[in-house]
Protein backbone atom coordinates (compact mmCIF):
# COMPACT_ATOMS: atom_id res chain seq x y z
CA UNK A 1 0.00 0.00 0.00
CA UNK A 2 1.10 3.57 -0.60
CA UNK A 3 1.78 5.71 2.46
CA UNK A 4 2.41 9.35 3.29
CA UNK A 5 5.31 9.27 5.75
CA UNK A 6 6.46 12.86 6.07
CA UNK A 7 5.60 16.45 5.23
CA UNK A 8 7.55 19.48 4.09
CA UNK A 9 6.45 23.09 4.45
CA UNK A 10 8.33 25.43 2.18
CA UNK A 11 8.18 28.96 0.75
CA UNK A 12 8.29 29.17 -3.04
CA UNK A 13 9.63 32.68 -3.70
CA UNK A 14 10.33 33.13 -7.44
CA UNK A 15 13.59 35.00 -6.77
CA UNK A 16 14.97 31.85 -5.09
CA UNK A 17 14.56 30.06 -8.41
CA UNK A 18 16.20 32.94 -10.24
CA UNK A 19 19.14 32.87 -7.82
CA UNK A 20 19.63 29.14 -8.42
CA UNK A 21 19.24 29.48 -12.19
CA UNK A 22 21.82 32.29 -12.25
CA UNK A 23 24.21 30.44 -9.95
CA UNK A 24 24.42 33.25 -7.40
CA UNK A 25 23.38 31.27 -4.32
CA UNK A 26 26.73 31.88 -2.63
CA UNK A 27 26.38 35.64 -2.67
CA UNK A 28 26.04 37.14 0.83
CA UNK A 29 22.40 38.06 0.21
CA UNK A 30 21.44 34.51 -0.79
CA UNK A 31 23.81 32.37 1.23
CA UNK A 32 21.67 32.41 4.44
CA UNK A 33 18.56 31.49 2.39
CA UNK A 34 20.13 28.37 0.90
CA UNK A 35 22.11 27.31 3.96
CA UNK A 36 18.88 26.19 5.60
CA UNK A 37 18.14 23.77 2.76
CA UNK A 38 21.43 21.85 2.90
CA UNK A 39 20.15 19.55 5.63
CA UNK A 40 16.83 19.24 3.78
CA UNK A 41 18.52 17.91 0.65
CA UNK A 42 20.29 15.26 2.69
CA UNK A 43 17.01 14.40 4.38
CA UNK A 44 15.22 14.23 1.05
CA UNK A 45 17.78 11.75 -0.28
CA UNK A 46 17.38 9.55 2.81
CA UNK A 47 13.62 9.39 2.34
CA UNK A 48 13.94 7.67 -1.04
CA UNK A 49 10.52 9.08 -1.83
CA UNK A 50 8.78 7.49 -4.81
CA UNK A 51 6.32 10.32 -5.13
CA UNK A 52 6.03 13.89 -3.89
CA UNK A 53 2.46 15.11 -3.54
CA UNK A 54 3.03 18.82 -4.06
CA UNK A 55 0.47 21.42 -2.94
CA UNK A 56 1.15 24.81 -4.52
CA UNK A 57 -0.57 27.68 -6.26
CA UNK A 58 -0.32 29.11 -9.72
CA UNK A 59 0.46 32.85 -9.82
CA UNK A 60 -1.73 33.90 -12.75
CA UNK A 61 0.64 32.13 -15.10
CA UNK A 62 -1.07 28.99 -16.32
CA UNK A 63 -4.53 29.77 -15.01
CA UNK A 64 -5.85 33.09 -16.27
CA UNK A 65 -8.94 34.78 -14.83
CA UNK A 66 -11.33 32.94 -17.18
CA UNK A 67 -11.47 29.85 -14.98
CA UNK A 68 -10.47 29.72 -11.32
CA UNK A 69 -10.65 26.25 -9.81
CA UNK A 70 -10.25 26.15 -6.03
CA UNK A 71 -8.51 22.77 -6.13
CA UNK A 72 -7.03 21.43 -9.39
CA UNK A 73 -5.27 18.06 -9.43
CA UNK A 74 -2.59 17.46 -12.04
CA UNK A 75 -3.45 14.23 -13.89
CA UNK A 76 -1.35 14.80 -17.04
CA UNK A 77 1.65 12.55 -17.78
CA UNK A 78 4.03 15.46 -17.27
CA UNK A 79 4.17 19.16 -16.48
CA UNK A 80 6.55 21.53 -18.23
CA UNK A 81 7.90 24.67 -16.52
CA UNK A 82 5.86 27.67 -17.70
CA UNK A 83 7.04 30.98 -19.11
CA UNK A 84 6.13 33.53 -16.42
CA UNK A 85 7.17 36.52 -18.47
CA UNK A 86 10.92 35.94 -18.28
CA UNK A 87 11.09 32.64 -20.18
CA UNK A 88 10.61 29.20 -18.59
CA UNK A 89 12.95 28.15 -15.75
CA UNK A 90 15.74 25.88 -17.05
CA UNK A 91 14.75 22.91 -14.88
CA UNK A 92 13.52 19.41 -15.77
CA UNK A 93 9.98 18.63 -16.81
CA UNK A 94 8.03 17.25 -13.85
CA UNK A 95 6.80 13.66 -14.35
CA UNK A 96 3.57 12.48 -12.78
CA UNK A 97 2.60 9.14 -11.32
CA UNK A 98 -0.43 9.25 -13.55
CA UNK A 99 -2.13 6.12 -12.26
CA UNK A 100 -1.85 7.30 -8.68
CA UNK A 101 -3.08 10.78 -9.65
CA UNK A 102 -6.21 9.47 -11.32
CA UNK A 103 -6.83 7.15 -8.38
CA UNK A 104 -6.57 10.14 -6.02
CA UNK A 105 -8.93 12.17 -8.23
CA UNK A 106 -11.60 9.49 -8.10
CA UNK A 107 -11.15 8.86 -4.43
CA UNK A 108 -11.33 12.56 -3.50
CA UNK A 109 -14.52 13.17 -5.43
CA UNK A 110 -16.24 10.15 -3.89
CA UNK A 111 -14.97 11.48 -0.56
CA UNK A 112 -16.88 14.71 -1.39
CA UNK A 113 -13.91 16.89 -2.36
CA UNK A 114 -14.96 17.97 -5.83
CA UNK A 115 -11.59 18.74 -7.34
CA UNK A 116 -10.91 19.84 -10.90
CA UNK A 117 -8.97 17.37 -13.06
CA UNK A 118 -6.14 18.82 -15.14
CA UNK A 119 -5.18 16.61 -18.10
CA UNK A 120 -2.88 19.28 -19.48
CA UNK A 121 -1.01 21.75 -17.36
CA UNK A 122 2.24 23.68 -17.15
CA UNK A 123 3.64 24.63 -13.76
CA UNK A 124 5.12 27.87 -12.47
CA UNK A 125 7.61 28.75 -9.73
CA UNK A 126 5.08 27.72 -7.09
CA UNK A 127 5.93 24.12 -7.93
CA UNK A 128 9.43 24.30 -9.42
CA UNK A 129 11.06 26.36 -6.66
CA UNK A 130 10.23 23.87 -3.88
CA UNK A 131 11.58 21.09 -6.14
CA UNK A 132 14.80 23.05 -6.67
CA UNK A 133 15.40 23.87 -3.02
CA UNK A 134 14.68 20.31 -1.88
CA UNK A 135 16.51 18.45 -4.67
CA UNK A 136 19.25 20.92 -5.61
CA UNK A 137 20.42 22.20 -8.98
CA UNK A 138 19.09 20.38 -12.03
CA UNK A 139 19.26 21.32 -15.68
CA UNK A 140 16.68 20.74 -18.40
CA UNK A 141 18.58 17.59 -19.40
CA UNK A 142 18.37 16.06 -15.91
CA UNK A 143 15.45 14.31 -14.31
CA UNK A 144 13.89 14.98 -10.93
CA UNK A 145 14.62 12.02 -8.65
CA UNK A 146 10.97 11.20 -8.06
CA UNK A 147 7.50 11.51 -9.52
CA UNK A 148 5.23 14.40 -8.57
CA UNK A 149 1.47 14.65 -8.19
CA UNK A 150 0.64 18.37 -8.17
CA UNK A 151 -2.37 19.94 -6.48
CA UNK A 152 -2.93 23.54 -7.48
CA UNK A 153 -4.93 25.70 -5.04
CA UNK A 154 -6.51 29.07 -5.75
CA UNK A 155 -5.07 31.58 -3.29
CA UNK A 156 -5.08 34.55 -5.67
CA UNK A 157 -8.72 35.50 -5.90
CA UNK A 158 -10.26 35.91 -2.45
CA UNK A 159 -11.41 33.74 -0.84
CA UNK A 160 -8.88 30.95 -0.84
CA UNK A 161 -10.32 27.73 0.60
CA UNK A 162 -10.47 27.89 4.40
CA UNK A 163 -7.70 26.41 6.50
CA UNK A 164 -10.23 23.96 7.86
CA UNK A 165 -11.15 22.80 4.36
CA UNK A 166 -7.50 22.44 3.45
CA UNK A 167 -6.75 20.45 6.60
CA UNK A 168 -9.64 18.08 5.91
CA UNK A 169 -8.61 17.77 2.27
CA UNK A 170 -5.23 16.62 3.56
CA UNK A 171 -6.99 13.86 5.45
CA UNK A 172 -8.89 12.84 2.31
CA UNK A 173 -5.66 12.79 0.29
CA UNK A 174 -4.18 10.49 2.90
CA UNK A 175 -7.17 8.15 2.65
CA UNK A 176 -6.80 8.17 -1.13
CA UNK A 177 -3.09 7.39 -1.02
CA UNK A 178 -3.58 4.61 1.53
CA UNK A 179 -6.17 2.92 -0.66
CA UNK A 180 -3.69 2.66 -3.55
CA UNK A 181 -2.24 -0.82 -3.93
CA UNK A 182 1.28 -0.10 -5.12
CA UNK A 183 3.93 0.09 -2.41
CA UNK A 184 4.93 3.76 -2.54
CA UNK A 185 6.60 6.12 -0.14
CA UNK A 186 4.89 9.49 -0.55
CA UNK A 187 6.16 12.77 0.93
CA UNK A 188 3.73 15.67 0.89
CA UNK A 189 4.81 19.30 0.36
CA UNK A 190 2.75 22.30 1.42
CA UNK A 191 4.22 25.42 -0.15
CA UNK A 192 3.90 29.21 -0.18
CA UNK A 193 4.33 32.00 2.34
CA UNK A 194 5.50 32.84 4.80
CA UNK A 195 4.56 36.43 5.65
CA UNK A 196 4.75 38.67 2.61
CA UNK A 197 2.87 41.40 0.81
CA UNK A 198 3.82 42.12 -2.78
CA UNK A 199 1.34 44.87 -3.58
CA UNK A 200 0.47 48.50 -3.02
CA UNK A 201 1.61 50.79 -0.25
CA UNK A 202 2.00 48.21 2.51
CA UNK A 203 4.27 46.00 0.38
CA UNK A 204 7.17 44.51 2.31
CA UNK A 205 5.21 43.51 5.40
CA UNK A 206 6.96 40.78 7.39
CA UNK A 207 5.75 39.33 10.68
CA UNK A 208 8.40 37.08 12.16
CA UNK A 209 6.57 36.61 15.44
CA UNK A 210 3.41 35.43 13.69
CA UNK A 211 5.35 33.15 11.33
CA UNK A 212 7.23 31.58 14.24
CA UNK A 213 4.00 30.83 16.05
CA UNK A 214 2.59 29.28 12.87
CA UNK A 215 5.62 26.97 12.58
CA UNK A 216 5.36 26.04 16.27
CA UNK A 217 1.67 25.22 16.08
CA UNK A 218 2.08 22.88 13.10
CA UNK A 219 3.33 20.40 15.66
CA UNK A 220 1.65 21.51 18.89
CA UNK A 221 -1.82 22.58 17.72
CA UNK A 222 -2.48 21.78 14.04
CA UNK A 223 -6.26 21.65 14.37
CA UNK A 224 -6.45 24.97 16.20
CA UNK A 225 -4.05 26.49 13.66
CA UNK A 226 -6.25 25.34 10.77
CA UNK A 227 -9.08 27.47 12.21
CA UNK A 228 -7.18 30.73 11.60
CA UNK A 229 -9.55 33.10 9.78
CA UNK A 230 -8.48 34.54 6.43
CA UNK A 231 -8.50 38.12 7.71
CA UNK A 232 -5.79 37.21 10.22
CA UNK A 233 -3.44 36.04 7.46
CA UNK A 234 -4.19 39.14 5.40
CA UNK A 235 -3.70 41.59 8.27
CA UNK A 236 -0.86 39.87 10.15
CA UNK A 237 1.07 38.05 7.43
CA UNK A 238 0.38 40.33 4.44
CA UNK A 239 -2.07 39.96 1.59
CA UNK A 240 -0.03 37.23 -0.08
CA UNK A 241 0.61 35.48 3.25
CA UNK A 242 -2.75 33.76 2.82
CA UNK A 243 -0.84 31.22 0.70
CA UNK A 244 -0.07 29.51 3.99
CA UNK A 245 -3.49 27.82 3.95
CA UNK A 246 -1.77 25.30 1.67
CA UNK A 247 0.42 24.14 4.54
CA UNK A 248 -2.72 22.82 6.27
CA UNK A 249 -3.27 20.34 3.42
CA UNK A 250 0.19 18.95 4.14
CA UNK A 251 -0.40 18.88 7.88
CA UNK A 252 -3.81 17.23 7.56
CA UNK A 253 -2.29 14.38 5.55
CA UNK A 254 0.12 13.47 8.37
CA UNK A 255 -0.51 11.68 11.65
CA UNK A 256 -1.58 13.71 14.67
CA UNK A 257 1.72 12.71 16.22
CA UNK A 258 4.58 14.25 14.25
CA UNK A 259 8.11 15.29 15.09
CA UNK A 260 9.65 18.47 13.73
CA UNK A 261 13.04 17.34 12.44
CA UNK A 262 14.15 20.54 10.72
CA UNK A 263 13.24 24.21 10.59
CA UNK A 264 14.65 27.16 8.68
CA UNK A 265 13.52 30.78 8.71
CA UNK A 266 15.13 33.76 7.05
CA UNK A 267 14.18 37.29 6.05
CA UNK A 268 14.30 38.29 3.26
CA UNK A 269 14.24 36.63 -0.11
CA UNK A 270 13.12 39.52 -2.27
CA UNK A 271 9.84 40.58 -0.58
CA UNK A 272 9.27 37.49 1.47
CA UNK A 273 10.01 35.67 4.71
CA UNK A 274 11.39 32.25 3.80
CA UNK A 275 10.03 29.53 6.05
CA UNK A 276 10.69 25.83 5.87
CA UNK A 277 9.87 22.91 8.11
CA UNK A 278 10.13 19.11 7.94
CA UNK A 279 7.68 16.96 9.89
CA UNK A 280 7.89 13.18 10.22
CA UNK A 281 5.14 10.85 11.33
CA UNK A 282 6.53 9.48 14.57
CA UNK A 283 5.33 5.94 13.85
CA UNK A 284 6.95 5.94 10.38
CA UNK A 285 10.31 7.23 11.55
CA UNK A 286 13.20 5.16 10.26
CA UNK A 287 10.99 2.86 8.19
CA UNK A 288 11.58 4.37 4.76
CA UNK A 289 15.33 4.69 5.14
Amino acid at each position, binding site marked *: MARITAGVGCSHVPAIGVAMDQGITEQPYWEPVFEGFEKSREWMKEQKADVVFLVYNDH*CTVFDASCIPTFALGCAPEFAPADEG*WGPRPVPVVKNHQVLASHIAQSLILDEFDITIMNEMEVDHGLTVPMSVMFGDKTVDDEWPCLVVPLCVNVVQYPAPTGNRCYNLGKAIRRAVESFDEDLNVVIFGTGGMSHQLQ*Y*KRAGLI*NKEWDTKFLDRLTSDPVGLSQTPHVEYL*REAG*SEGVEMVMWHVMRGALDDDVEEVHRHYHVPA*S*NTAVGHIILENVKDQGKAK
Partner: protein
Amino acid sequence: MPLKKDYEDIPGTFIFDADKGREGYQLNQFCISLRLQKNRDTFGENEEAYLDNYKMTAEQRQAVLDRDWNRLLELGGNIYYTSKLAAYDGINFQQLAGLMTGMGNDAYRAMMVAGGRSPEGNRYQSEWDEKGDE
Protein backbone atom coordinates in the same frame (compact mmCIF):
# COMPACT_ATOMS: atom_id res chain seq x y z
CA MET B 1 -27.56 40.73 1.92
CA PRO B 2 -24.03 41.34 0.64
CA LEU B 3 -21.15 39.47 2.23
CA LYS B 4 -19.43 41.42 4.96
CA LYS B 5 -15.90 42.42 4.07
CA ASP B 6 -13.87 42.23 7.25
CA TYR B 7 -10.65 42.92 5.35
CA GLU B 8 -11.34 46.42 4.07
CA ASP B 9 -9.71 48.24 6.99
CA ILE B 10 -6.20 46.90 6.23
CA PRO B 11 -4.15 49.92 5.14
CA GLY B 12 -2.27 50.11 1.84
CA THR B 13 -3.76 46.84 0.65
CA PHE B 14 -6.26 45.64 -1.92
CA ILE B 15 -7.87 42.28 -1.36
CA PHE B 16 -8.51 40.82 -4.79
CA ASP B 17 -12.02 39.55 -4.23
CA ALA B 18 -14.87 38.77 -6.63
CA ASP B 19 -15.76 42.47 -6.99
CA LYS B 20 -12.17 43.36 -7.88
CA GLY B 21 -11.98 40.35 -10.17
CA ARG B 22 -15.04 41.51 -12.09
CA GLU B 23 -13.78 45.08 -12.37
CA GLY B 24 -10.31 44.08 -13.48
CA TYR B 25 -11.11 41.14 -15.73
CA GLN B 26 -10.14 42.61 -19.11
CA LEU B 27 -7.12 44.38 -17.66
CA ASN B 28 -5.87 41.20 -15.99
CA GLN B 29 -6.47 39.12 -19.10
CA PHE B 30 -4.40 41.61 -21.06
CA CYS B 31 -1.59 41.40 -18.49
CA ILE B 32 -1.46 37.61 -18.46
CA SER B 33 -1.33 37.50 -22.26
CA LEU B 34 2.17 38.97 -21.96
CA ARG B 35 3.49 35.77 -20.47
CA LEU B 36 3.92 34.47 -24.02
CA GLN B 37 6.83 35.72 -26.10
CA LYS B 38 4.76 36.09 -29.29
CA ASN B 39 2.35 38.39 -27.46
CA ARG B 40 5.18 40.37 -25.90
CA ASP B 41 6.52 40.90 -29.41
CA THR B 42 3.17 42.04 -30.78
CA PHE B 43 2.58 44.37 -27.82
CA GLY B 44 6.06 45.80 -28.34
CA GLU B 45 5.35 46.62 -31.97
CA ASN B 46 2.32 48.76 -31.15
CA GLU B 47 1.01 48.97 -27.61
CA GLU B 48 -2.16 50.90 -28.49
CA ALA B 49 -3.16 48.46 -31.23
CA TYR B 50 -2.55 45.48 -28.97
CA LEU B 51 -4.69 47.01 -26.23
CA ASP B 52 -7.61 47.27 -28.69
CA ASN B 53 -8.00 43.50 -28.25
CA TYR B 54 -9.13 43.99 -24.66
CA LYS B 55 -12.32 45.76 -23.70
CA MET B 56 -10.91 47.58 -20.72
CA THR B 57 -12.03 51.00 -19.49
CA ALA B 58 -10.34 54.15 -20.76
CA GLU B 59 -8.86 54.63 -17.29
CA GLN B 60 -7.43 51.12 -17.18
CA ARG B 61 -6.00 51.54 -20.66
CA GLN B 62 -4.35 54.82 -19.71
CA ALA B 63 -2.92 53.30 -16.54
CA VAL B 64 -1.35 50.54 -18.65
CA LEU B 65 0.18 53.03 -21.08
CA ASP B 66 1.40 55.18 -18.16
CA ARG B 67 2.69 52.15 -16.22
CA ASP B 68 0.87 53.63 -13.23
CA TRP B 69 1.33 50.56 -11.02
CA ASN B 70 -0.82 51.67 -8.10
CA ARG B 71 -3.60 52.95 -10.34
CA LEU B 72 -3.70 49.53 -12.04
CA LEU B 73 -4.41 47.95 -8.65
CA GLU B 74 -7.01 50.58 -7.79
CA LEU B 75 -8.79 49.75 -11.05
CA GLY B 76 -9.07 46.02 -10.40
CA GLY B 77 -5.64 44.78 -11.39
CA ASN B 78 -4.07 42.06 -9.31
CA ILE B 79 -0.38 42.09 -8.51
CA TYR B 80 0.31 38.68 -10.07
CA TYR B 81 -1.21 39.97 -13.31
CA THR B 82 0.37 43.42 -13.26
CA SER B 83 3.72 41.77 -12.53
CA LYS B 84 3.55 40.30 -16.06
CA LEU B 85 3.44 43.84 -17.49
CA ALA B 86 6.29 44.76 -15.14
CA ALA B 87 8.29 41.73 -16.32
CA TYR B 88 7.75 42.92 -19.88
CA ASP B 89 9.43 46.19 -18.81
CA GLY B 90 12.24 44.25 -17.10
CA ILE B 91 10.98 45.09 -13.61
CA ASN B 92 10.98 42.31 -11.01
CA PHE B 93 8.72 41.97 -7.94
CA GLN B 94 11.08 43.75 -5.60
CA GLN B 95 11.64 46.66 -7.96
CA LEU B 96 7.89 46.86 -8.48
CA ALA B 97 7.36 47.07 -4.72
CA GLY B 98 9.89 49.91 -4.62
CA LEU B 99 7.73 51.75 -7.14
CA MET B 100 4.34 50.99 -5.54
CA THR B 101 5.46 52.03 -2.06
CA GLY B 102 7.08 55.20 -3.42
CA MET B 103 10.24 54.27 -1.52
CA GLY B 104 12.42 53.58 -4.53
CA ASN B 105 14.43 50.43 -5.04
CA ASP B 106 17.36 51.09 -2.70
CA ALA B 107 15.33 52.18 0.33
CA TYR B 108 12.83 49.36 -0.18
CA ARG B 109 15.56 46.76 -0.51
CA ALA B 110 17.28 48.12 2.59
CA MET B 111 14.01 47.87 4.53
CA MET B 112 13.63 44.22 3.51
CA VAL B 113 17.23 43.37 4.42
CA ALA B 114 16.61 44.96 7.83
CA GLY B 115 13.68 42.57 8.43
CA GLY B 116 10.87 44.06 6.39
CA ARG B 117 7.97 46.36 7.21
CA SER B 118 6.83 45.78 10.77
CA PRO B 119 3.17 44.95 11.38
CA GLU B 120 3.24 47.49 14.24
CA GLY B 121 1.19 50.50 13.17
CA ASN B 122 0.36 48.82 9.87
CA ARG B 123 -2.60 46.63 10.74
CA TYR B 124 -5.51 49.06 10.59
CA GLN B 125 -6.37 52.00 8.37
CA SER B 126 -7.04 54.03 11.53
CA GLU B 127 -3.36 53.68 12.45
CA TRP B 128 -2.34 55.18 9.13
CA ASP B 129 -4.96 57.94 9.42
CA GLU B 130 -3.44 58.98 12.75
CA LYS B 131 0.02 59.17 11.23
CA GLY B 132 -1.38 61.20 8.34
CA ASP B 133 -0.55 58.50 5.77
CA GLU B 134 -3.04 57.76 3.04
